[in-house]
């Protein structure tokens, strides 16, 4: 098939595809109820909530460690929660910064790279802030119960050892479940995990970034 024939075939294909239906684009802009939305607003709302959550933890942590400057263990618990609150705020702020860089009127490669980068960062953000709860529950409960007036003078570093071991076991169990669920022997579970936030989205977003980089190379 020569070039002329190819273009003629394309025009024939195009005509055929356009016969399928006619859509009034002008009316579609106001139509509601579509199943899909590529807008990033829900993600933005989620990140604002994360900032507020981080701020609450930070304020609680500061109020707590200021009262326990003389007790190394309790002071450490407050400071750990303080650091976690800051991490929540910083990661959400960085995600919002990336959302702001996504502009669909940019060239395809630029916009898709920004989206893939955002997706990758969002997943890393979720992993850091989510998985750390295997350990953060200890300073969080210590701070909350401490602020509620519970007697914590008996708490020593050793008191947190069982919790730390549970955290390590939990992390290992999460990692094991993640690998186990992706086995080809369990296709339905593998599909469900893949479609979830934690699934292989990180690999997927990295693959998208690699595809874009390859497309840019001559």
């Amino acid at each position: 098939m020569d070039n002329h024939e190819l273009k003629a075939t394309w025009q024939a294909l195009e005509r055929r595809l356009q016969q399928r239906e006619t859509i009034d684009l002008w009316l579609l802009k106001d139509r509601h109820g579509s199943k899909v939305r590529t807008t990033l607003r829900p993600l933005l709302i989620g990140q604002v909530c994360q900032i507020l959550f981080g701020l609450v933890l930070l304020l609680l942590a500061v109020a707590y460690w200021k009262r326990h400057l003389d007790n190394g263990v309790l002071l450490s618990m407050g400071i750990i929660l303080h650091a976690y609150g800051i991490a929540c705020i910083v990661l959400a702020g960085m995600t919002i910064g990336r959302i702001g860089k996504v502009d669909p009127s940019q060239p395809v490669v630029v916009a898709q790279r920004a989206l893939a980068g955002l997706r990758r960062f969002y997943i890393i953000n979720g992993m850091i802030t989510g998985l750390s709860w295997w350990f953060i529950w200890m300073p969080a409960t210590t701070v909350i119960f401490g602020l509620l007036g519970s007697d914590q003078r008996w708490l020593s570093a050793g008191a947190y050892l069982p919790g730390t071991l549970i955290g390590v076991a939990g992390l290992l169990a999460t990692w094991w479940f993640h690998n186990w669920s992706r086995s080809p022997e369990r296709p339905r579970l593998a599909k469900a995990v893949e479609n979830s936030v934690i699934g292989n989205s990180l690999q997927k977003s990295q693959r998208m970034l690699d595809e874009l980089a390859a497309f840019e190379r001559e």
Partner: protein
Amino acid sequence: MPAWKMQKSACQERFRALVEQHQGIVFKIVNTYCFVAEDRRDLAQEIAVQLWRAFPKYDGQRSFSTWMYRIALNVAISQVRTTIHRGRYVVPLDEDLHDRPEDGLDAGVREDRIRALHAFITAQNDLDRALLLLYLDEHPHQEIADILGISASNVGTRIGRLKQRMREALRIPEHYS
């Protein structure tokens, strides 16, 4: 009518006129990326919404079709990657739709070519599909480069490779020749 309302109305009219003038771009992209009626309708709606949202920032000095291609392709690629299942891609061309024969070709040959081209397009990845669409629509390399965000020389190289693959994929069965 207050000035702001008049301004909004004028903006809406301008947008409507431009979209009507270039709506073929959206249909081409929708048809190239979705092969299920429900997906096509959803994608067309999403593109319309995103075009309207982005319109206030559109620079009237620049080409509207380039701007529209960028948004429509970005929305299509994002939607295909996140929402539309890969398994839904491969849907045969409607049997009952036929175009008018204008090229004097045997109907069987033309049918085979159309099907082969359709199959070739559906087999491409999202980015190559965009490139192929723009090439088949006879856009200059520089304009394709502006839409996709790669260099014009890269466009030339990639189109050369696509053409080579197309030549191999679009071989017509011997019994028609």
